[in-house]
């Protein structure tokens, strides 16, 4: 059992035009920047992948990471809860120009839809968004005298996730609040690709502290000392 691969470029090489891609992270925390950078570089060299549907809590910040993907025109649709950031220009401009589609989902509903996708639950009911514009067109049902909105699972072709420790089975731990959407996205994609800051031997991670069991992971690539989006932005780095 060895799910490791040598480089981020190899890890993302198969992602085709038109794919749906879940990208972990909440803002910069947990963003798999080296996997994203490999995608960006591939796009700059080959023009692919493009027309991507990306699932992320946000829509990037500045000119690196997801924001760079959007500014370069790789993304045709965003599914997210909060398309704002300190420097949201890439998304804002594309959105106002009608160049990118937006499916806005309340944050807890986004998380639960992804979990449902991974857990084989095609639909569930939530009180969230009842009576609001974001519930328009969705079935409503009453349980125990309260009204709820039906939401559908969310799956993707690929998930790109950043973890802390990883072993060749794909068992993962995360770092602090960088955990956020990572464990959910790992479960909900047909192919889950994870960059880990430390690749360790099978058996090194205590089975008690594994957050994502390897069954949810297809590919592991070690990226030591990964970049932090906040620091890249403070240094005004640009991938565009």
């Amino acid at each position, binding site marked *: 059992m060895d799910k490791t691969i040598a480089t981020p470029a190899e890890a993302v090489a198969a992602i085709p035009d038109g794919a749906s891609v879940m990208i972990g992270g*909440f*803002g*910069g*925390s*947990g963003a798999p920047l080296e996997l994203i950078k490999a995608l960006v570089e591939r796009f700059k060299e080959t023009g692919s992948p493009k027309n991507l549907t990306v699932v992320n*809590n946000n829509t990037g910040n500045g000119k690196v990471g997801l924001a760079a993907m959007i500014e370069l025109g790789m993304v045709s649709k965003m599914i997210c*809860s*909060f*398309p*704002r*950031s*300190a420097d*949201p220009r890439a*998304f*804002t401009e594309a*959105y*106002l120009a009608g160049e990118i589609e*937006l499916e*806005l*989902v*309340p*944050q*807890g*509903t*986004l*998380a*639960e839809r*992804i*979990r449902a996708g991974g857990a084989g639950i095609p639909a569930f009911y*939530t*009180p*969230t*968004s*009842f*009576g*609001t*514009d*974001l519930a328009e067109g969705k079935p409503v049902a009453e349980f125990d005298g309260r009204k709820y909105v039906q939401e559908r699972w969310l799956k993707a072709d690929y998930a790109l996730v950043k973890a802390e420790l990883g072993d060749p089975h794909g068992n993962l731990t*995360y*770092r*602090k*609040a*960088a*955990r*956020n*959407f*990572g*464990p*959910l996205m790992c479960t909900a994609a047909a192919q889950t690709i994870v960059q880990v800051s430390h690749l360790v031997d099978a058996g090194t991670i205590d089975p008690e502290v594994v*957050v994502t069991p390897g069954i949810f992971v297809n590919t592991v690539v070690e990226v030591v000392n990964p970049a*932090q*989006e*906040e*620091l890249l932005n403070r240094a005004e780095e640009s991938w565009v």
Partner: protein
Amino acid sequence: MSIETKLTNAQIAWRAAQDIQDGAYVNLGIGFPEMVAKFQPEGRQAIFHTENGVLNFGEAPAAGTEDWDLINAGKKAVTLRPGAAFFHHADSFAMVRGGHLDVAILGAYQVAQSGDLANWSTGKGGVPAVGGAMDLVHGAKRVAVITDHVTKKGEPKLLKECTMPLTGVGCVTRVYTSLAVVDIEDGQFVLREKLPTVSMDDLQSVTDAELHIDGDIAELIVPEL
């Protein structure tokens, strides 16, 4: 309109903090509501929850010592207190939606006497963004709003009905404003406290819906902060 004195945001946050019990689990909205954490009364310690998967976080670290993997929902760096825990987003919103938070304190564009809240979209175009607000308003045991009593243009924010897109229906039970503390009960605003310098008539004149009275109206304290 003759209202000259009003609470600052910090003073509103202070007032809201007085109602948070020791040991309460609390979520504070991004921005202005985050200030509530600073004003916990002596001898009480709330446990703060952030949507992005941290329970029991503390103050901001000193500049230059930030860990950008340890942030709150507003993407600001935070620290941990003893007894903290990390968890993923589905577990985080299980806490929210499952009714495990004691209090959520949010900002507002508008609040209606029905308890409807509008705080996510002005409805005027631009880029809409909702975040966790729609989950929070249906999850916490008590949903309170802190807000200036009127908009920057002086228009009422406490309304008969919201005109902006709703965040939630019938979800707010108390509003802390720059002029008053108002409960929402049975589809009515019930005035609990007001600034002594503001008359009932003046207060009503900047409130779209009727302010009802049910028992004594206490004096809204103006803390020195």
